């Protein structure tokens, strides 16, 4: 690597000021962490930053006229942990080990001074930022702190700068696991300051307006004995049992597939009896192992995709070409259309008109939206003024002439090309020449939909994922004749809807549904050939997907999934499988293959099993998995060759945001490279070594 490729560290400086505390409690040396940039560039710890921190601690350690050491951050930010870009550059295990040790060596000094140390957590404290606070003797937290967490496990690593040892010893294993595992594995959920107090991480909370002043007064009271800090001794008797329970929960969810939650759990288990030295050394080893794994490199790659590429979509036209959208039309008033109406009204705050064939359907759709708004008010999540505004924005009629002054009309009618073409033709007779006509189709050709129009250049695919309010992905499909202004407007609208937009070319089922359909087809085919239902459905467990193939089938609905498989089979008959057994399942009206048991588990529905006519060539789980992975490698490569998206990164971003596929797999292409499927099927990798994997 040339020197110019090494990212320069944004150094977090550690600066010492000494002053008198109130109440004549004595003098405090306060260390401020600051990278000299504003709050939009939170402070992180790299190697140079740790050196400066050590120097600051040397400085305070040499003072004999202080009664306490304080630690705080720049305005709004305490510290947000390790410099991740540096972590992705590590090439040897020794270097990885050194990262852990350097953090421990600096941070632990704050807990081993001759005087007490106080962390004044004035703002966001994540990862190493929270860990350095845990090393201090006491902690105050601002009620305005926007984010508090140990997100390491979310990123595929472990809290390796003391968190995995100190937190369970401070608050006990149950609460420690809530932060280290449960929150990290729940879409990186952040603690509120009140949570930090409840868990015993914060000793005191103060409001942001005079947080530091009140924290220092509190520190003075602690030092003079006016305030006594009560800490509950962790319950050692229950420790092992709690770890056992947590292990069972991890197994049920991940089946051992992800390394970091298990390593973190091991560390929390060991924290019960380890000394500080042993505990920190165990963290160093675990962190080094994980940093030197492909899964962590893929996680960092995924994190970057979501943080950066999702915000600056590749291939999107110039933003300046986007036209303003001051009124939105929605064709259809069914459930999907109603969800879209609510989303557009909430995010764009412009009039949204729904139409359908008859007034009863229209009323039902508008009624749904109005009721959802009322529910938000009841739950205290929306003011009544806002609700009045949004309720007034959403209306419905049967006559499409209401769309005359709309700038953006999206159809969400039955998934049939003829129907959609007719809708667009009808719309074109009413709307202006520049009104965007968008389709929420999941698998039909957008180009074909536009073909009969006078202005086909204004048609664009706008594909949401269910439930639309929750799923972050929006595939924006560019049809053959879509012009730049149309696509730019679609991106602007998608961004205003707070979705992560990915540009895809108009190709059957775009990205997410195409890969999921191909993959589900392989699983179904294995069953049709005679593989046991359970073996087939559990074959993908090593990938730690958020749900098994047949649970996904139930979520989508067998009818919809089957319909898409037929569409895809029509487009690519060699690769996309239509299962006759699946047709029977749809005809039976059964909701899926699994059936819930009374005790919260699930069993294969015997009636479904009886419906299926199966062959006599069962496969093992490994064989099923290999077939499925090969199919994914094949399809992903074809999509790139066809130009559906411009890079593997976009496929991965789509699978992370649209299907919830894990960070540790890097979406999918890093996993396909890692397991050999890419080489096996295509003769080459998707990504060069080092991009989402360990460097060669």
């Amino acid at each position, binding site marked *: 690597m040339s020197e110019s490729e090494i990212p320069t560290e944004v150094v977090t400086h550690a600066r010492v*000021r000494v*002053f008198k505390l*109130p109440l004549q409690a004595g003098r*405090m040396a306060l260390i*401020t962490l600051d990278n000299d940039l504003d709050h939009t560039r939170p402070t992180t710890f790299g190697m140079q930053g740790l050196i400066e921190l050590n120097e600051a601690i040397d400085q305070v350690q040499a003072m004999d006229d202080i009664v306490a050491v304080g630690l705080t951050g720049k305005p709004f930010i305490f510290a947000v942990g390790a410099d991740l870009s540096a972590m992705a550059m590590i090439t040897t295990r020794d270097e990885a080990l050194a990262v852990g040790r350097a953090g421990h060596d600096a941070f632990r000094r704050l807990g081993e001074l001759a005087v007490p140390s106080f962390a004044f957590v004035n703002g966001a404290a994540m990862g190493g930022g929270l860990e350095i606070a845990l090393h201090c003797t006491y902690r105050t937290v601002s009620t305005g702190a926007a984010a508090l967490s140990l997100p390491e496990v979310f990123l595929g690593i472990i809290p390796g700068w003391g968190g995995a040892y100190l937190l369970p010893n401070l608050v006990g294993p149950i609460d420690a696991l809530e932060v280290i595992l449960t929150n990290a594995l729940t879409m990186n959920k952040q603690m509120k300051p009140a949570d930090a107090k409840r868990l015993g991480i914060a000793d005191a909370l103060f409001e942001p*307006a005079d947080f*530091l*002043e009140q924290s220092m007064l509190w520190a003075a009271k602690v030092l003079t004995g006016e305030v006594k800090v009560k800490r509950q001794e962790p319950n050692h008797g229950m420790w092992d049992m709690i770890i056992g329970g947590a292990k069972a929960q991890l197994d049920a969810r991940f089946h051992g597939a992800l390394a970091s939650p298990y390593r973190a759990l091991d560390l929390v288990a060991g924290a019960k009896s380890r000394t500080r030295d042993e505990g920190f050394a165990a963290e160093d080893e675990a962190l080094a192992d994980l940093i030197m794994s492909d899964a962590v490199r893929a996680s960092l790659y995924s994190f970057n995709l979501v943080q950066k590429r999702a915000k600056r979509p590749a291939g999107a036209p110039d933003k300046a070409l986007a036209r303003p959208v001051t009124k939105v039309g929605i064709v259809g008033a069914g459930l999907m259309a109603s969800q879209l109406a609510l989303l557009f009204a909430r995010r764009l705050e412009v009039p949204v008109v729904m139409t359908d064939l008859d007034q009863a359907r229209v009323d039902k759709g508008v009624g749904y939206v109005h009721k959802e708004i009322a529910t938000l008010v009841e739950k205290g999540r929306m003011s009544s003024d806002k609700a009045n505004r949004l309720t007034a924005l959403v209306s419905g009629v049967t006559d499409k002439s209401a769309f005359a002054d709309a700038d953006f009309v999206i159809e969400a009618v039955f998934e049939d090309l003829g129907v959609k073409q007719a809708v667009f033709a009808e719309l074109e007779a009413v709307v202006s020449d520049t009104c965007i006509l968008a389709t929420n189709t999941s698998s039909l050709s957008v180009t074909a939909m536009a073909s009969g129009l006078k202005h086909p250049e204004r048609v664009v695919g706008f594909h949401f994922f269910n439930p639309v309010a929750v799923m972050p992905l929006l595939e924006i499909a560019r049809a053959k004749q879509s012009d730049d202004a149309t696509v730019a407007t679609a991106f602007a609208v998608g961004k205003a809807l707070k979705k992560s937009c990915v540009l895809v070319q108009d190709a059957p089922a775009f990205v997410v549904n195409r890969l999921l359909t191909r993959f589900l087809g392989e699983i179904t085919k294995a069953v049709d050939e005679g593989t046991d239902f359970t073996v087939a459905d559990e074959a993908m467990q090593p990938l730690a997907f958020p749900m098994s193939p047949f649970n996904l089938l139930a979520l989508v609905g067998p009818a919809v999934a089957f319909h898409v498989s037929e569409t895809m089979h029509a487009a690519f008959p060699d690769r996309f499988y239509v299962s006759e057994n699946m047709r029977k399942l749809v005809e039976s009206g059964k909701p899926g293959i699994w059936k819930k048991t009374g005790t919260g588990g699930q069993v294969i529905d015997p009636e479904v099993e009886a419906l299926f006519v199966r062959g006599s060539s069962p496969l093992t789980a490994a064989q099923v998995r290999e077939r499925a992975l090969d199919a994914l490698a094949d399809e992903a490569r074809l999509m790139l060759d066809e130009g559906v998206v411009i890079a593997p990164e976009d496929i991965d971003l789509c699978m992370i945001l649209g299907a919830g596929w894990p960070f540790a797999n890097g979406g999918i292409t890093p996993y396909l490279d890692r397991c050999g499927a890419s080489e096996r099927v295509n003769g080459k990798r998707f990504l060069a070594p080092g991009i989402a994997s360990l460097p060669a």
Partner: protein
Amino acid sequence: MGRSVREVVFVDGVRTPFTKAGGAFASARADDLVVKSFREILRRNPALPPAAIDDVAVAATTQIGDQGLTLGRSAGILAGLPSSVPGYSVDRMCAGAMTAVTTLSAGIMAGALDVALAGGVEHMTRHPMGEGIDPNPRFVAEKLVDTDALVMGKTAENIHDRYPKITKERADRYAMGSQRKTAAAYAAGHLQPDIVPIAVPSVDGWSLVSVDEGPRPETTLEGLSGLKTPFRPHGRVTAGNSSGLNDGATAALLASEEKADELGLTKKMRMVGYAFAGVAPEIMGVGPVPSTEKALQRAGLSISDIDLFEINEAFAVQVLAFTDHFGIDDEDPRVNPLGGAIAVGHPLASSGIRLMSYLAKDFEMNPSARYGLTTMCIGLGMGGTVIWENVNYAGAK
């Protein structure tokens, strides 16, 4: 409908440390100084429900930037007052906070308010006096004011001209007294309880500022005599016998006596009356003379009824012009017993409340004193005086 005038009481007053321009508050925001002072008032008076505050007035001389945006309202929001509590801004140059107090008090007397929060701030690092002003050219063209009128040091030199008996030596001696009294008050712990420590971010990290930067207890007459006279060659006004350029904020809680009793708020002093008066702008420092005469006359009191004086020490000469006028000795112990602005500083619009907090302390320590006054000179030729009664008054000595 029958109307009656109601008594107004000064419940509490606090201030930030007063720092030197370019000093410890250089990187602090003016509005934050006010906000932190307000929050301290609320914490010190837990019997007061914040929603019971009927109005908030905050003074600043230069009302732009962090001293703009209708500070009385914006500081209220930032301090966490309920949105039902209104607020406004006040400007009467150096007497801003004093005017915030008198204006709110008038509202209390008239029955328009029961409880009010007053404040004042001047961040002279960020907002040097005269920042952004655009004086009307008629001032000069029509000789409406002397060209000295906008330079306060020159107006002080002009007072020396008017009263030749007030020599530089007397001014320096008075200034040294202010430093000594301040040092003694600090040593006795009289000042610290009303000072709100402020955490300030800077390029060197956060620090906690708890004490005034101005005081120079080591001041000697010799030292003072050698200082430069920046406003005039061989003049009399120096940095040593003037207040400095300072950053700081003050806050006070006022209430009708009835409401204070109902809520169980402590009362420190009762307002007797107040007056403002104008003088020629080029000798603005004599303003407290006519304003005090007017206030005494309206209150039906004479100068001999006043047991304690808190006069703002913008310049030593201006204090001496006042004491000479009323026949008070230069070292009369009734005048500024805790020291004054020459030592602690004068962040323009904030000082009026600082004087009131000092007088409240004077009263507390002197239960035999019944009446006291706070007075100050004001740029552009004015004076302001508020007469107060000691609620702790225990009868004649």
